[in-house]
């Protein structure tokens, strides 16, 4: 796994076998706040009342999907399909704008935690108002994610930032950690809002709009702890069984996910490592420039040249800082989000497999005539529908996810390249102007000598 290196054994520039460089981009570089507030002003809002009905396009039977009771069922009508496609093709026609900001620390006798302010602006009819402001903590986001996963087991739910970052964290609530998390939470909610199906999820709506007390009481509803535990035990038992035969396209998908996951993790590590190396380079450069100033103090003829060199190095330091800031904004969070996405994808594949295994085990039971065949046949019918829904949901969402991933990765790396170009252009300008000033001096001195 070593990259090209002729280094001494003490350092290696390839990736170590274990985990490494998992530090979040720290440093004193302030990261700018969210930009979606400006998006709010620019994008026009389209009245999409009709699409309100376009929910849960793929589901046929509510009990199987364990959907929340507020959303109406819709058959897969051609009209609703067209509406959905139109929605996806015109992403500018957003009608739901969300920002996450203003982290605040709350101290109680039991614990300390951070809440984030969430502002929602919308023109949708099903919302009681056009603007909402609530405060939520990480736990609440976790709840939302779990509800979405329950409701749509084979849709690709956007990832949440990690609960903890194990390495390099001294204190849970340092500013960089909070800022990075805030940005990731902002992304999380916006991704849900952009998702053609998830955006109309009722729990999502409640999350965005409910007041504190209303929200807590809503959270307590739903399947109890015991039944949830029971479900997960069953799930484990099923997954132990393993899936018998995955359809071809899902085999391919699984293969892709495995390799993608491996590669994106590597890229995450590489990018973090580059950031770290750049930081250390910057630290050394900051010491390098001033030495020339020190030297100029004991020189006469050379003093000016030395001072100019020092100021060039200083300019290059500034350019490096800018490059680092660009990297930590444009590249690192995107790559890291996709690392989390890859974990999400594997979970989705598992859940799909579980649904299929459920069907397979019932079919097996039927063929071995172990139980009441009539009941089994009915159950199998329902399960076949369930499997078909799940597969279709995943397929469609998969294509959408692939497309998004391509765009996101493309723009992240293009930005990285752009940052590097800007960096080198700045440094080039600095050194070239130094050179010109020195050559001018030379000519001046030469002409003075002639006099």
């Amino acid at each position, binding site marked *: 796994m070593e*990259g090209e290196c002729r*280094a001494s054994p003490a350092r290696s*520039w*390839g990736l170590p076998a274990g985990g490494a460089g998992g530090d979040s981009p720290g440093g004193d570089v302030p990261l700018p706040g969210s930009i979606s507030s400006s998006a709010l002003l620019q994008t026009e809002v389209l009245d999409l009342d009709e699409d309100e009905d376009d929910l849960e396009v793929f589901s046929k039977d509510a009990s199987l999907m364990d959907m929340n009771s507020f959303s109406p069922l819709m058959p897969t009508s051609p009209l609703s399909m067209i509406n959905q496609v139109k929605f996806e093709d015109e992403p500018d026609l957003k009608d739901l704008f969300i920002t996450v900001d203003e982290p605040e620390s709350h101290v109680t006798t039991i614990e300390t935690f951070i809440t984030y302010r969430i502002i929602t602006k919308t023109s949708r009819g099903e919302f009681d108002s056009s603007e909402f402001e609530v405060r939520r903590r990480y736990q609440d986001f976790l709840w939302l994610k779990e509800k979405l996963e329950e409701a749509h087991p084979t849709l690709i739910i956007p990832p949440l930032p990690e609960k903890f970052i194990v390495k390099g964290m001294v204190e849970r609530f340092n500013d960089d950690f909070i800022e990075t998390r805030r940005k990731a939470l902002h992304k999380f909610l916006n991704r849900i809002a952009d998702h053609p199906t998830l955006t109309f999820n009722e729990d999502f709506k409640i999350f965005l709009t409910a007041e504190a007390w209303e929200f807590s009481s809503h959270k307590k509803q739903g399947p109890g702890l015991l039944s949830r535990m029971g479900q997960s035990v069953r799930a484990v038992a099923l997954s132990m069984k393993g899936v018998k035969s995955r359809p071809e396209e899902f085999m391919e998908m699984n293969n892709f996910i495995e390799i993608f996951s491996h590669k994106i993790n590597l890229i995450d590590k590489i990018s973090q490592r580059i950031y770290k190396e750049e930081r250390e380079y910057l630290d050394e*450069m900051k010491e390098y420039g001033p030495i020339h100033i020190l030297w100029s103090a*004991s020189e006469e003829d050379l003093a000016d*040249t030395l001072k100019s060199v020092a100021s060039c190095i200083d300019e290059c330091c500034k350019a490096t800082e800018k490059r680092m800031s660009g990297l930590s904004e444009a590249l690192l969070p995107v790559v890291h989000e996709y690392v989390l996405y890859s974990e999400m994808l594997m979970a989705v594949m598992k859940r799909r497999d579980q649904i299929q295994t459920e069907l397979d085990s019932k079919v097996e039971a039927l063929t071995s005539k172990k139980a009441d065949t009539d009941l089994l046949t009915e159950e199998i019918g329902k399960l076949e529908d369930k499997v078909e829904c799940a597969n279709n949901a995943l397929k469609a969402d998969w294509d959408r996810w692939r497309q998004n991933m391509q765009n996101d990765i493309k723009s992240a790396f293009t930005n990285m390249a752009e940052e590097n*170009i800007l960096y080198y252009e700045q440094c080039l300008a600095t050194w070239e102007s130094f050179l010109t000033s020195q050559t001018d001096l030379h000519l001046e001195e030469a002409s003075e000598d002639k006099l």
Partner: protein
Amino acid sequence: MTESNFSLKKIEISVSEAEKRTGRNAMNMQETYTAYLIETRSVEHSDGQSVLTDSLWRRCSAFEWLRNYLLVYYPHIVVPPLPEKRAEFVWHKLSADNMDPDFVERRRIGLENFLLRLASHPILCRDKIFYLFLTQEGNWKETVNETGFQLKADSRLKALNATFRVKNPDKRFIELKHYSDELQSVISHLLRVRARVADRLYGVYKVHGNYGRVFSEWSAIEKEMGDGLQSAGHHMDVYASSIDDILEDEEHYADQLKEYLFYAEALRAVCRKHELMQYDLEMAAQDLASKKQQCEELATGGELFSIWGVTTQLFGQETPEQREARIKMLEEQIKEGEQQLKSKNLEGREFVKNAWADIERFKEQKNHDLKEALISYAVMQISMCKKGIQVWTNAKECFSKM
């Protein structure tokens, strides 16, 4: 080419090769050393054509002998320094191994530079031992030895003593000593930090190389993104490998600075010689003054005020003849002493004059060379930036096509 019309300004000297050799040393033990081929060409005709006139091998120790000889016989000259024997201020990639071919190559260039410095020095270029170094294949060491330079060298202890005790050294030399200390300290610091900067820069570039490999592996599972990833990965490899040449060039810049780091010691050597001479002068003057005082005391018979008086009182009176004899001896010594003082004074002034002339020459050379070095550093940075722009522009194109 005879010695008399030997004008080194019309010759070209090059240290063209370095070779590892093994041989037996003075204690009949096997040793490995490096020998260098020195070629001398004279530029005879106006068309600038050069003819190879001499070619011989010298090992490191010969260079050291040459320099030590020059230090002894030209104490008023800032003698050019030799390149370092051991690689110092290294950063991670460079090995500190003296047998490393890159190091040997840089040493070769350094030794050539040393000889060129000697050849372009108005006074040193005319030295016979230097001429023989370039031309006399065998017995050169014996010839140098015969000059007795090793015996003539001032002892370190003597020099240290003089530095502490000298009362009135020329102010300019005190300033020069301070300057050389500052120069040494600041260049050392600069070289150390430069090495660390180089280390970090190496890291930044090389880690990018990992992108190349991973992109290539990833491209295998992508249909639309595959080509873009693959070709971008290639550019990342190019970027990562470009640092090797960049840092190689920078090493030459470091060598230029190192030469002046070592020149600081040469400056101090001149200052030390001045202090030694001045101290010698002061001691001689002090000695003369005390002898004069003695003489006076004897002449005026003021025994009570001098130790001579006390001793003669203690050990009995001396005869007038004895006293006369002593006075005569002292008077002789005083005369001698006065002569010596005069000549030492003259010597001292000559030394200061000549030394200062060379120091002025050195200052001009230093300002010129270091300015050139700093400019060459800027040129290297510019080249590095241009390469960077090109690679990342190519990479950006690949990314945008994904």
